[in-house]
């Protein structure tokens, strides 16, 4: 208040700190970001919610109100419910696999006395690779369905038959390809999170455990390390589930070809992509799908956070 009055007479910069211009400065700093975030996140969501009540083929300003028809069509569509099932199967594979691998890598790297930085770099390096490039290597080289694929070559050494990895649905070998791509790409990222968690464990806990006669190895891990990593574990599982829900790149690049996408292994975003942006461009239906998925992911986040008691943390 005083600053505002002073400002008129003596425009020294000092007065800017004091007065009600703080509000102005707050918005100068935060305003552009909040404006953009609102425009490019909240507005599209609201617009989408609006579109989802219309028959919107190839148009974003529809006139044909259809009520909840898009929602009932979406929820009644087997392909949509199948995509949710695909997500569940994918999550059931990728979350435990990544958790175990990244935690094991972190434990082993953390105990190294030399070359720690080297091994950390090697396992972290795939983080720099895109899903597109990784899918290309997996599809065209490692899991190529013909005899010059690496996996089939190795099978050949043992006299086993060749496998068409991505087009065999019985047994569904494509899951092995899909899961290993993501495992390779993201394990190093979560390993770094676990390494940070391990380094925050106070050494006196291990000393106390040694005094109490705990054997190094499994006992110490079970009673000290693992419980102490709880916060990191919660964050890792949360991130893994959310990221699995958003999976698109590796599915699309591994499975689609010039004939389109096969009828199996369609996660939600792939389904949405073909519904909203495929030949029909059914934006009303696609919007209904986006709203349903947004609600599901928000619900999953809240439930997980509640379940793990994140809300009770400080801050």
């Amino acid at each position, binding site marked *: 208040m005083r600053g505002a009055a002073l400002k008129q007479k003596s425009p020294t910069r000092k007065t800017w700190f004091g007065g009600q211009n703080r509000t102005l400065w707050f918005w100068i*700093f935060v305003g552009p970001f909040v404006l*953009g975030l609102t425009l490019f996140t909240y507005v599209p969501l609201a617009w989408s919610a609006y579109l989802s009540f219309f028959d919107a083929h190839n148009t974003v300003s529809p006139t044909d109100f259809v009520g909840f028809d898009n929602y009932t069509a979406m929820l009644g569509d087997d392909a949509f419910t199948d995509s949710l099932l695909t997500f569940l199967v994918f999550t059931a594979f990728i979350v435990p696999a990544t958790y175990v691998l990244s935690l094991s890598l972190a434990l082993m790297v953390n105990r190294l006395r030399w070359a720690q930085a080297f091994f950390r770099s090697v*396992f972290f390096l795939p983080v720099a690779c895109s899903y597109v490039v990784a899918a290309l290597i997996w599809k065209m080289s490692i899991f190529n369905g013909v005899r010059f694929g690496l996996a089939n070559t190795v099978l050949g050494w043992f006299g086993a038959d060749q496998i068409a990895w991505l087009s065999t649905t019985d047994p569904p070998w494509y899951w092995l390809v899909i899961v290993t791509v993501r495992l390779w790409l993201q394990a190093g990222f979560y390993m770094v999170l676990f390494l940070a968690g391990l380094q925050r464990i106070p050494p006196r806990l*291990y000393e106390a455990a040694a005094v109490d006669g705990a054997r190094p190895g499994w006992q110490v891990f079970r009673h000290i390390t693992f419980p102490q990593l709880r916060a990191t574990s919660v964050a890792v599982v949360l991130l893994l589930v959310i990221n699995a829900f958003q999976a698109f790149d590796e599915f699309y690049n591994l499975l689609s070809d010039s004939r389109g996408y096969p009828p199996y292994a369609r996660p939600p*975003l792939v389904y949405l992509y073909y519904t909203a942006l495929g030949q029909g461009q059914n934006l009303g239906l696609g919007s209904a799908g986006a709203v349903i998925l947004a609600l599901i992911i928000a619900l999953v986040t809240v439930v997980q956070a509640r379940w793990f008691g994140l809300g009770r943390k400080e801050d």
Partner: protein
Amino acid sequence: MRRTPPAHDPHDGLARAGRAVRLVLLIALALLFLLPFYLLVRNGLSSEADITSSDWTFFPGELHWENIRELFDDPNVPMAHALLNSSLIAVLTTLGTLLLASLAGYGLARIPYRHANVVFYWILGTLMVPAAVTFVPSFVLVSSLGWISTLRGLVVPTLFSAVAAFIFRQYFLGFPRELEDTARVDGLGYWRTYWQVVVPNSRPVFAAVGTIVFIGAWNSFLWPLVIGQDREAWTVQVALSTFTTAQRVNIHELFVAAAVSILPLLVVFLVLQRYIVAGVERSGIDD
């Protein structure tokens, strides 16, 4: 802490054996993790016949460096243009995100405002709905703005990262106040304090967020696929994906293109790794 027990421990020999097993396992895993990179280079520098030969060999017969020239000379593969697009998008996205998110983070952390909490939760709310899930709504918005296949359509909507703003806010909350107080005594306002005192003393956090944003922008796929529909607007990832899925390009050319696309990133990655690790730790802890 996790040292070997004292020498009189009966498990000493066991521990040593355990260490050896662990080291062997680590080396095997490291080789397995490096294998895809090797295959990328091996196939990229092989002749088509070597790749598709039925007796697979670990080392190709001879290295065909001319594959790189062939890639850039092929008029059907707009690789140079795609590299240019990706570079432009990644640089602009990184600079824009750093500017917008750091200003927002600083304002939230340091400028008192009655409704700052409301604004903070408004930003956090977007974390509940990941960007990928909203690609249909965002596509609707961008297409009605007429931004399909334009640079601004590819860049602008991705500039507002709530995670980045959140990381900056947490960082600035812990920024030493004494430095800002000194600036205040010198008569600097919020703006000049920020640029002359805060930013120059926060380089590591800018480097950390910047490298992560850069890698994310370079590797991003769904958004450029949806928005960059014209061939002229293809990024490297979209170009590679189109050729992988359409299978109209020779395998060796595909691999050399992929290797070229990943090379700049690997260099950035190895040089700036400590910042990236710091950034990953920050984003993970605060999430």
